[in-house]
C-alpha cells in the first residue's frame, strides 16, 4: 500500500467521546480500519453508529479522544479539510443536491480530488459502476428513485477517489433487489482498493461482506473481531440476526 510509510492502520480511533448536550452518544470508542477491505459497524438504533461517522468526518465535534487518519489527527479540522484528505462520508439520507442534475452532483464529488485532469476518467468509472446514472445524467437528483439516489451518493463519493469511504445505512429504505445490488457494488469497490467503513442495520449482509466488524451498543464497542466469527457468535445471532 503506497504512501502509508509503515502505518499499519488507515484510520485509528482512540477513546472517542461525543455528547449532544447532556446525552452521551459515544463513550470511549476505539476502532481501527486497515488500508484495504471492508470494516462493518453494526448495532441497534441509537447505538451511536451514525454519530461515530459524523465525528470522524468532522460534522460533530468530539469532546475527547483522537481520530488519526494516515497518521494525522483529524479532530478539530473543519469538514471540508477532512473531505479533501479523501475521507468521504456518505450520510444516511444520502446528502444529494436535489435541485442539481445527476451530472452536476457527480462533478461536485470530484472537487475533493485535487487532480482535475482525471475527472473525465473518474466520471467514466462512476457511469460504468452505475449505468442507470448515465441514462439519467441530465435529470435533477431529487427526481431519482431511492435506489438511484443511493447509487448517485456512492458514485459521487467515488468521484473523490476516496482513501476511505464511509457508508451510513446504504440499504435503508431500498427494495430487496436494490439492497442486493448495493451489496454487490460495495465489495467490488473494496476489491478495487478503496477501504470501506460500513454502518448497517442489515447486520447479516454487512457481516457477510466485511472482513472485520465492530458491534456498538449505547456508545461503546461491546464486541469486535473477524466478521465471520461475529456472524457465528451466539450473542450476535440473538441480538442482531434474529436467531432464537
Amino acid at each position: 500500500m503506497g504512501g502509508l510509510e509503515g502505518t499499519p492502520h488507515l484510520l485509528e480511533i482512540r477513546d472517542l467521546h461525543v455528547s449532544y448536550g447532556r446525552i452521551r452518544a459515544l463513550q470511549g470508542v476505539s476502532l481501527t480500519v486497515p488500508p484495504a477491505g471492508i470494516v462493518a459497524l453494526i448495532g441497534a438504533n441509537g447505538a451511536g453508529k451514525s454519530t461515530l461517522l459524523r465525528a470522524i468526518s468532522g460534522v460533530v465535534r468530539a469532546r475527547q479522544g483522537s481520530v488519526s487518519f494516515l497518521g494525522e489527527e483529524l479532530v478539530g479540522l473543519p469538514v471540508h479539510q477532512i473531505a479533501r484528505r479523501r475521507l468521504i462520508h456518505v450520510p444516511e439520507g444520502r446528502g444529494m443536491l436535489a435541485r442539481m442534475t445527476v451530472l452536476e452532483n457527480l462533478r461536485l464529488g470530484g472537487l475533493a480530488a485535487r487532480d482535475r485532469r482525471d475527472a473525465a476518467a473518474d466520471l467514466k468509472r462512476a457511469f460504468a459502476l452505475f449505468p442507470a446514472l448515465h441514462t439519467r445524467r441530465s435529470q435533477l437528483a431529487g427526481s431519482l428513485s431511492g435506489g438511484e439516489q443511493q447509487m448517485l451518493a456512492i458514485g459521487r463519493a467515488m468521484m473523490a477517489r476516496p482513501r476511505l469511504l464511509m457508508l451510513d445505512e446504504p440499504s435503508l429504505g431500498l427494495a430487496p433487489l436494490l439492497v442486493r445490488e448495493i451489496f454487490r457494488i460495495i465489495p467490488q469497490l473494496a476489491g478495487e482498493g478503496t477501504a470501506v467503513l460500513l454502518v448497517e442495520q442489515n447486520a447479516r449482509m454487512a457481516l457477510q461482506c466485511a472482513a472485520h466488524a465492530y458491534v456498538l451498543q449505547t456508545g461503546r464497542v461491546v464486541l469486535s473481531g473477524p466478521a465471520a466469527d461475529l456472524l457465528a457468535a451466539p450473542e450476535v445471532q440473538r441480538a442482531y440476526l434474529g436467531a432464537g
Partner: protein
Amino acid sequence: MPDGAFFAFLVVDGALAGAIYALVALAFVVVYKASRMINFAVGEWTMVGSRTAAAAGQVLGTGLAGALVTACVAMIGLALLFNRVVLRPLSQRSLLSLIMVTIGVGIFMRGAATVVFAGLPVRIVSPFPADPLVVGGLPVAVDKIAAAAIAAATIAALSWFFHGSRTGLALRAVASDQQVAMAVGIDLHRHFALTWGLVGVLSVLAGTLWSVASGGGFGIELLGLKVFPIVILGGLDSLPGTIIAAFVVGILESLVTGYLDPLVGGGFSHVASYVVLIATLLVRPYGFLGRPDVERV
C-alpha cells in the same frame, strides 16, 4: 410622435433601464443564493461603487477604463473587508441579525459617502456621443444602448461563470446545501468571500452604467427600492427569473411614466412595480421562476 412610435420608444427605453436593474439585482441574488442573506444595502453598494469610480477618474486623471479598474479593486477590497469583519463573526447568529446589519451598513455608507467623497464629482462623464441614434425612426440615447450592452455582456459572463466553471458549480452547491457543500470539500468561507468580491465588481459596473445612462448619479441609492420588487418577482434565487423580472419592471416603469404619470400628476411609476409585485405574488407566491422547497424523500 405617433402613438405606436411613442409606445415603442417607451418599451425600448424601459428595456435599456431594465438591463442595468438586472445587474444590481444580480448583486443581490448572488448573496442571497450563497447565504440566504437579504442585502438591504444593495442600493448603497451601487452608489458607493459609482462614486468611487467617479472619484477615481477625477483624482487619478485616468480615463473611464482606468477609473473602473481602480474602483473595482477598491470595492472588492471593501466587500471582502465587510464580509470578514462584519459578516463572518455574525455567521453563527440568526439570519435576522445579519439582515439588520445590512440595513445599518447601508445607512452608514450613505453618511460616510457624503464625508469621504466631499468635493469630488458625482457624475461620471459619458464617453459616448450625446446625439441620439435613430433606430427605425426611434431616437435612442447612445449611452443607454452602450450601458445596456455592457450590462448584458456582464450578465452573460456571470451565467457562464455559474453554470460552466468549477468555481460556479461549487458556489451553486453552497447555495443549495451548505452541509453537503462542506462534505464534498468546499470551503464555505472562501466562497462567501468570492461572492462578496462579485458584489464589489457588480456595484461598480451597475453604479457607473446607471450614472452614465441617467446623466448623473442622483438618487442612485434608490436603485435598491427598484431592486426588491425585481428579485422577489424573479423568485429570489433564480438568475433567469431575476433578469426577466428586471426587464418587466424597467418596461413597466417606462410605460407608466409615459401614459399614467401625466394623468395622475407624476410619481406613480415608482409605485407601479410594487402594485405588480403584490398582484403577482397572489398568483405565483414564488415569483416567476422561484421554486418552492419541495423535494422527494
